């Protein structure tokens, strides 16, 4: 894996918002055709990192290389044009618009009729159907509103759209977070399919099982720093589950609670003796 050239790489990047350090000395790289999971607790810097990748933020320090060349993005559209597509959990789709209209929003297919440039509905409907069926979702009617789709299907349309418009890097921000087991499966299946097309995927999730099922490598962030990147072999499932479910913290918490209980017991015991004494005194 290490012999391939990374499609996207950041070296020692820092990002500060005023006095808040969101990212400190973070390095990671992304290879074509891999699913790279970005793991970490809330506030670990995952969002800041992917927003840097997708052109929303600019790093304060450090290098950002795309296909080996240093890049600087002014806007998300800029990054999108280079082939870096981001699918956000909530901002993916417009519910009242049809699937086909959503699919092509901003990049409408056109058909010239006389002096007019028409929106090519036939092409849009056909393509949306085809692209969705490639990922195993059969849409009967691409002109139905996206609002009638399930959450997983909506995410899938967003991903299919990014892939269709030539994404080389696909950044997925918790695409399975709000989904049921079956729907999450739909999305995970499509992540693997995108990977097999040679697309590099950055996959953010809180679910260790989702991460371990599709991930090739795992980068773990904690408090704005990276704890390193691990391959599947280097990071056994149990170890990752332990890290992601915060087992250490949970153990510490259990310990703490036990101490509380202990002191409560002591107090309770002390109080009861006081009461007993009072009762005994007859007051």
């Amino acid at each position: 894996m290490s012999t391939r050239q990374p499609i996207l790489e950041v070296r020692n990047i820092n990002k500060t918002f005023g006095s808040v350090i969101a990212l400190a000395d973070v390095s990671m790289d992304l290879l074509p055709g891999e699913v790279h999971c970005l793991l970490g607790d809330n506030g670990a810097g995952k969002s800041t990192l992917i927003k840097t990748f997708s052109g929303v933020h600019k790093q304060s320090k450090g290098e950002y290389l795309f296909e080996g060349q240093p890049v600087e993005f002014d806007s998300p559209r800029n990054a999108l044009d280079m082939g870096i597509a981001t699918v956000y959990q909530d901002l993916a789709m417009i519910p009242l618009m049809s699937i086909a209209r959503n699919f092509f929003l901003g990049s409408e297919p056109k058909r010239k009729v006389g002096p007019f440039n028409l929106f090519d509905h036939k092409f849009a409907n056909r393509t949306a159907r085809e692209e969705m069926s490639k990922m195993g979702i059969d849409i009967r009617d691409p002109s139905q509103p996206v609002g009638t789709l399930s959450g997983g299907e909506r995410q899938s349309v967003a991903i299919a759209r990014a892939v269709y418009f030539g994404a080389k890097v696909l950044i997925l921000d918790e695409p399975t977070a709000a989904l049921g087991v079956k729907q999450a499966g739909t999305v995970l299946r499509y992540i693997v399919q995108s990977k097999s097309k040679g697309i590099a995927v950055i996959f953010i999730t809180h679910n260790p099982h989702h991460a371990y099922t599709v991930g090739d490598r795992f980068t773990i962030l904690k408090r704005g720093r990276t704890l390193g990147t691990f391959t599947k072999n280097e990071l056994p499932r149990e170890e990752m589950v332990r890290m992601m479910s915060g087992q250490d913290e949970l153990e510490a918490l259990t310990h703490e609670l036990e101490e509380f209980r202990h002191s409560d017991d002591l107090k309770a015991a002390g109080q009861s003796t006081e009461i007993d004494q009072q009762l005994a005194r007859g007051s």
Partner: protein
Amino acid sequence: MTTTAQANQDERVAEVGGLRKFLSRPELGAFGGAILVWLFFAIVAPVGFLSLRGTANYLEVSAQIGILAVAVALLMIGGEFDLSIGSLVALSGAATAILTTQYGLPLYVSAIIALIFALLAGMLNGYLVVRTKLPSFIITLAGLFVYRGLTIAMTRLITGRTQVGGLDDMPGYGLMESLFALRIPIGEANFRISILWWFLFAGIATFILLRTQIGNWIFGLGGDETAARNVGVPVDRLKIGLFMTTAFSAWLVSTITVIQVKSADTLRGDQFEFIAIIAVVIGGTLLTGGYGSAIGAVFGALIFGMVRQGLVFWGVDADWFQVFMGAMLIVAVLVNNFIRKRAEVANR
């Protein structure tokens, strides 16, 4: 919706089409409502209402609101309001009349200059909304007062009055009359050319909305501005363009009325902005944007015209008209919500 891997089952598309497609159109409620209103007045006031003359009469009334409503529909689908169009009707009408009567310009030249004023006002509305990020409701509410006040103050300053008449004696009236006030005789009735302008405008709006890239952008803008911006829709320019479209419609209506009545009045167009919004909402457009139709707005305006003139034919005091329109608005919103929910379920 199923998740089978089989593709290209095209024959199933037809299954969903046809009747259900029709039932899921946003203008369905207004279409049904227009038929009901027509039937109602056909029963209670058949003599005047059903005659060709009666028809020409309510179509003419509908056309003025209809032209505004079509433009407002585009804007509201894009997620914004324009409360300033009634005042812009007065502003551009007064500008046309003053430029001709006081400065001797031919009417068509004055009208073109008035159009430029109106478009600039629309551009200013849009620019302020885009730059300040304030709700367009607030920006154009300010516009409602500023443009109306400006019209009254300037007209009084220049002419000493609030009405400017006698336009039929002015140069260029003949040409303008044939463009904007022509009577087309059909049977015993004269149909005004404004009705054709209304239909033409509605046709163009519908074409843009449903068949062009800009139409897709308008739906996207109203549906989710951030999402639209992220995929590269030029949101700001689009918004300004929509405000200029409503301003254009105000100019068209003002020109039609100024030429038809041969005078300008600084109070003209009062409350037109609200009636246009009512027509658009009756036409099935969502107040929150992202969903709606220009054809629906046509039916909404048609309902307005039929009720307003129908009450006259019926012999009911016209004072009741506003009560009727207000109640109609509530009913229309409830009916449209019901239909839209059913349509979404039916599409599953």
